[in-house]
């Protein structure tokens, strides 16, 4: 299925609004899940890599911005943080803050 077809159908059934709202959620869910490949399931690390589950939302956003700007020392996090937008930092921060 291509994007155009889906959007056409969603509009046809009057599902456009829920479709767009849903897309934002699945994007946050996806990008947050990719963090877990290094930081552990649910953001809980078993070892030297820091856990990110339950981190304060503002601290998470500031950390990612600082990694991106290069003002916080890091091994690989500048390379990762540089690939995401401020809006994505906010969304990921809210997601991980909600995990205990």
């Amino acid at each position, binding site marked *: 299925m291509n994007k155009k077809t889906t959007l056409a159908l969603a509009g046809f059934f009057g599902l456009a609004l829920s479709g767009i709202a849903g897309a934002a959620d699945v994007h946050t869910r996806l990008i947050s899940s990719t963090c877990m490949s290094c930081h552990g399931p649910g953001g809980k690390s078993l070892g030297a890599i820091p856990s990110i589950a339950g981190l304060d939302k503002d601290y998470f956003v500031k950390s990612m911005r600082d990694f991106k700007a290069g003002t916080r020392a890091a091994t690989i996090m500048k390379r990762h943080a540089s*690939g995401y937008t401020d809006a994505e930092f906010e969304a990921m921060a809210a997601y991980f803050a909600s995990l205990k």
Partner: protein
Amino acid sequence: MTHNMTLNRRDFLKITGVGAAAVLTGCATLPGASAARSHVVVVGAGFGGATCAKYLRQWGPNIDVTLIEPNDKFVSCPISNWVLGGLRSMDDITHGYDNLSRRGIKMVKDYVTGVDTAKRVVTTRGGATISYDRLVLSPGIEILTDTVRGFKEAEAAGKVVHAWKAGPQTALLRKQLEAMPDGGTFVMSVPTAPYRCPPGPYERACMVAHYFKQAKPRSKIILLDGNPDIASKKALFTDAWNTFYPGMIDYRPNNAPLAVDGNRMVVTTEFDEVKGDVLNVVPRQRAGEVCALAGARNDSAGNWCTVNLATFESTTVPNVHIIGDSILAALPKSGHMATNHAKVCASAIVELLAGRQPDPTPVIANTCYSATSDTTSGYVANVYRYEAGKGYVSQPEGGATPKGSELIFKYNASWAENIWAEMLG
């Protein structure tokens, strides 16, 4: 199991092409409108398949998941070079599938021998016939043993291994290295790209060199590279070879092996006959066999699978998704990438089966560590953002570290424990 719960492009066109009354009827049977369940079959329980099965269950409560895998346990390719170096044991890189069963994933220990993509049915060696709404193939690589003359015979005789699928060959190669006399020569070949784990061969050279340095310091390593240069993390490996193992590694680019003789213990290239005490020949590769059974090994040479990178659905076979090393894309073939293909694929399948639009702009990342000694590692890390018409676009500031460190080694070890828990936990 209900096949009509799967909406594909054809279904959409069918529905949108008819009158309003029919549309209302169609609407009533839309997935999500009922609690009807769908069935996704995943083939291969490595980094890609195990992760995909886990997330399909987590994100798709109305999806039943069957995971077909011939092996009893998972043996990790990442960290398998550490076994060769004596840093880890086979037990350390071997993990069970028990937690996946506890998640409600139906584990089937079997080998897929047929895929009928018209009827949406897979058949197995054990005689099972399993229907699917969507099929995910994550078989990893098939090693093209015919591309190096004599390899099959030498492999069957237990004399030469590739050890490019972690398992018995990893243990055998370690034994061969242990049995090698001090002052012996280890010859390893690097396949021409694309191949699984681009930095893997060079990490393996580091790990074997580390072992030799401890146990057999007069020994040598000859690295016959089918590529024109070190294919990944060149600065990191060059620095490590010069710093930790000076004079031990003889690197020879543009030296693809043409033949191997396990009796004379010789690898033949276009230029030379190279004699060694332990030969580790890694032939070229292609997408796992099951991809061919599904008609999805569809690039021009028939070696790899082309997919829609926002959903990982085959570009030619509807309802069949391919993830991991088997796909053709401008992405590195790594276990870490396979877990992230799996997440994009699982997310897309959940949305498609529910009649919703998948994330049109997925973002994924690769993190790939390589050990350069028993206390140092380096990495390469990139974020890839999907753009329609372009595929995954590598974002700014990605790349490799030019020098390893002890802190990165600690993160390397922690990464392995975490990603194993993430995929199997």
